[in-house]
């Protein structure tokens, strides 16, 4: 596609359930990033992929969070046993280099 595609765009889940968020980066982009955007908190880095490997996963807030990337393309961010504080917009971005990072429109997660 023309841009970074994320799904679902909106997800409401019950506390304790697992959720999966998907990111389809721009074709050919080797770098892929996950960020979390919370109200008043700006963008919080979660994890960075180069190809299928994750050289930097320092931002994952707990072991309930994991992510994978397959085929150097699609990435999935999984949150297990969701908590209310996980409610946020989860942004995916991709790039060839830091010169220009392209962001998706995000997945808005609400944990009730």
């Amino acid at each position, binding site marked *: 596609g023309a841009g*970074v595609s994320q799904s679902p765009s909106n997800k409401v889940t019950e506390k304790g359930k697992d959720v999966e968020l998907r990111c389809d980066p721009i074709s050919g982009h080797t770098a892929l990033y996950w960020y979390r955007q919370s109200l008043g*908190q700006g*963008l919080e880095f979660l994890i960075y992929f*180069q190809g299928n490997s994750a*050289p*930097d996963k320092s931002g994952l807030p707990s072991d309930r969070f994991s992510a994978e990337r397959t085929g150097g393309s699609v990435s999935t961010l999984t949150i297990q046993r969701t908590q209310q504080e996980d409610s946020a917009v989860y*942004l995916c971005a991709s790039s060839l280099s*830091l010169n220009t990072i392209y*962001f998706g429109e995000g997945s808005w997660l609400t944990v009730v």
Partner: protein
Amino acid sequence: AQSVSQHNHHVILSEAASLELGCNYSYGGTVNLFWYVQYPGQHLQLLLKYFSGDPLVKGIKGFEAEFIKSKFSFNLRKPSVQWSDTAEYFCAVNIPGYSTLTFGKGTMLLVSP
């Protein structure tokens, strides 16, 4: 760990007013600097960036930013704002050799017509 500070969380201006949004970072070495904008209901997009060279950087839509190394600052400016500039603006910093950006908490700009 590096940090990025954006001093104003909310700014309200009338059309044609001049804009300056502050951004300061904490890292003492060489940095790459960015401003991103998020219009209502849209995704983040790059406004401008500084890697090296002329510290006065011009971006899209009439925005510019000045890198002042001695002040660890990269303030965003626009001489005359328009209603369509209403958006949230994020400053971001990268340390060369690292592949991630550290963002500030953002400044919400509201321009009244």
